[in-house]
């Protein structure tokens, strides 16, 4: 049962990585405009 002592930090750490990526995406402004980019991708130039 000692495996759980290692598994908890791994699980939380993994989730923390995703949290970090989300926070970075928000700071980069990826969530500022949710309407335009999905339309833009349909027009190649």
């Amino acid at each position, binding site marked *: 049962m000692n495996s*759980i002592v290692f598994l908890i930090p791994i699980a939380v750490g993994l989730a923390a990585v995703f949290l970090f990526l989300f*926070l970075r995406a928000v700071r980069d402004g990826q969530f500022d405009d949710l309407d*335009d980019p999905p339309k833009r991708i*349909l027009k190649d130039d």
Partner: protein
Amino acid sequence: MSESTKPSAELAPVSRCPHCGTAVEGAEDTFCCAGCEIADAIIRGAGLERYYAEREDFAPRPEPLAGGWDAVVSEPDEEGLCSIRLSVDGLRCASCVWVTENVLQRTEGVAEATVSYATGRASLRWDPHLIGIADIAGQIAALGYRPRLLGEESSPDRELLLRLGVAAFAASNVMMFSAALYAGWFGGMEPRFVALFQWVSLVLATPVALWSAAPFFSGAWAGLRNGVLHMDVPIAIAVAVLYVQGVAGTLMATDTYLDSLTMLVALLLAGRVLESRGRRRAVEAAMTLAATVPSTARRTVGDSVETVAASELRPGDHVTVGSGEELPADGSVVDGEALVGLALLTGEAEPTAVSRGHRVWAGTVLIDGALIVEVTEAAEDTVIHRMAEELRHAADRGTRPSSTDRIAPWFTGATLMAAGMTLAWWWQAAGPGAALTTMVAVLVVACPCALALSRPLAAAAGLGAAARRGLLFRSADSLLELAHVDSVVLDKTGTVTAGALDVIGAGDEDLRVAAGLERYSRHPVALALVREAVSRSIPLPAATEVREQVGVGVSGIVDGARWSIRSGGSGVVVLEGEGGYHALIRLGDAVRPDSSEAVERLKRLGLQVTLLTGDHEEAARRIGTGAGIDEVLAGVPPDRKAAWIRDRRARGGRVLFAGDGLNDGPALAAADVGVAMGTGAASSILMADGVLAAGSLLPLSTGVVVSRAAERAIFWNQLRSVMYNVTAVTAAAAGFVNPLVAAVLMPLSSALVVWGASRVEATVRRREAA
């Protein structure tokens, strides 16, 4: 008139202008005007001819670039590039956006150009040494789209999203450990694992309680300091109790509610994010509508004329103003004769004739003629600027307490009382330990999470539903206020009527000849004639030997006969054939085609509709009858409009006012709900509660339907959540609630509220179908 001068439409073949689709007499691929030919050349020259194959709609007819873009100042950044944001009108499809963006990107000197598909806004960066903003704006106008200047962008609220991210991360992880702990209740679990899981949960919940939930604490504190007990107070109490109990429980190895804490904060923040996105979208949309065309003036210095920004004019300067231009300052006429439209100031559509010695005002439009004006007041001292400034103060009416905020004090009081009674009862019955545990359970389930979400979620759904139907509201408060309105007061010019110079009386044949003659002209009358011909689908005939004499008229040959058009006084142009007088064409302000239906729908909703106008009795009656309005009040000057509305409100009425001009400002501010026309003056848009985006009154009735649906949804949501709280608090006081029960009940009650809010759109659709 003889038979030979009668125009004939049967012979010539009809084709469509390849750029704007206007019907034209002539061979295939005949352009309707020089503007379209230039637009086509620009697009093909840039190698973007794909546009013509892919577009879903024709482009608008290019009209000359209005305003003085030369005067727009933009400071270069460290890279030496200037940047600006524009709103671009007339973008009808994705291909229009694509072609505009690509033409700009291929324009020399433009470093960056992006046009938003969703909002039609352009962000530009350019090198001021290679190109000027006037040329860039001219390029947009040459394609048929109309650029306008946008103000500063409101920055998106990223912080709320960050807080939500942290809370959601913690909630999902804490839930995992809590599930294990609850399983341990039934299957048994070693105490050291219980302690481990609890400590990990506490570590994860700490940033949520201290950082993510901070807006609720600061909100509650700000409210208390101002002596207001609003919804943030019970939320802050619940979060604080939950966290303190969590710390104590972890230290003493008893059950904690940390999963409920994180979930609750995440849910509440999600509600806030939705609310603030909805509000920001509405404010941005209103700002787009309020974007302005920069104004400049042509100042005469000695013998030469220079172009300056209107704000640089000083009293004593002489400025030249031509047809279709806006007056840059207040002043008196030194020379020239002209028709001036005073609609912006007085609300009267009929143009006024002015000549030497008359006073003229900034913001009014010179419809026909030319003037030299000596400036008496400029920039901040002009009447229009002072009015806008006064109105900005009047419009600031503060925030009204919402129905949820009115419940909050009662709610908090009842919660604290229930907690106190529970503590007292359990203390004498089972001792301090059980008493504290039960009291905490009461405070936890009493958290008004669902109640706090009930209003913002339904209001956000309502704002979205109204916006999709062309009515933009700045705040949820004003949208919800619309449900209680019992009378609708409409302004005439620009609201019930289109407010622009339009053809109101002309035979098809006469119009055909006139539009043919005016096809290449930029005069406001010419544009109105051609617009009307296009809307009646009359193919524009070819005209030759066209001569335009400024201030006099146009003459040319159509169908082999010589025709001329000249001004026939106020609101009338005369069409003359070879034998002299042929016909009159009346121009004026026409009732919007859908106004009568809009009025009919408002009446069906049980609202009283009134027309309130500064215009004289006869014109007001004509418009009122045309639109089906029974109560018509004519000859009411702008300041009296506001007084009239205040009077009706004093007698217990709830008034919705819709108007468009700067002169309607006081009335917009005086009404319970003020709605401006998106086609109206920028200042009226900026201070109204709501804006009609499409220049039609139809969305007004839809707005009332949406508002009523949202109010109903809020009422039921509040009832459901209060019932949940009463039941849960009773159960908790009786000692039936433990962390597992709380963890199931609390999100469930919130889900019920989300479901209630999602029904707003469905209700509105059902009403529309009926």
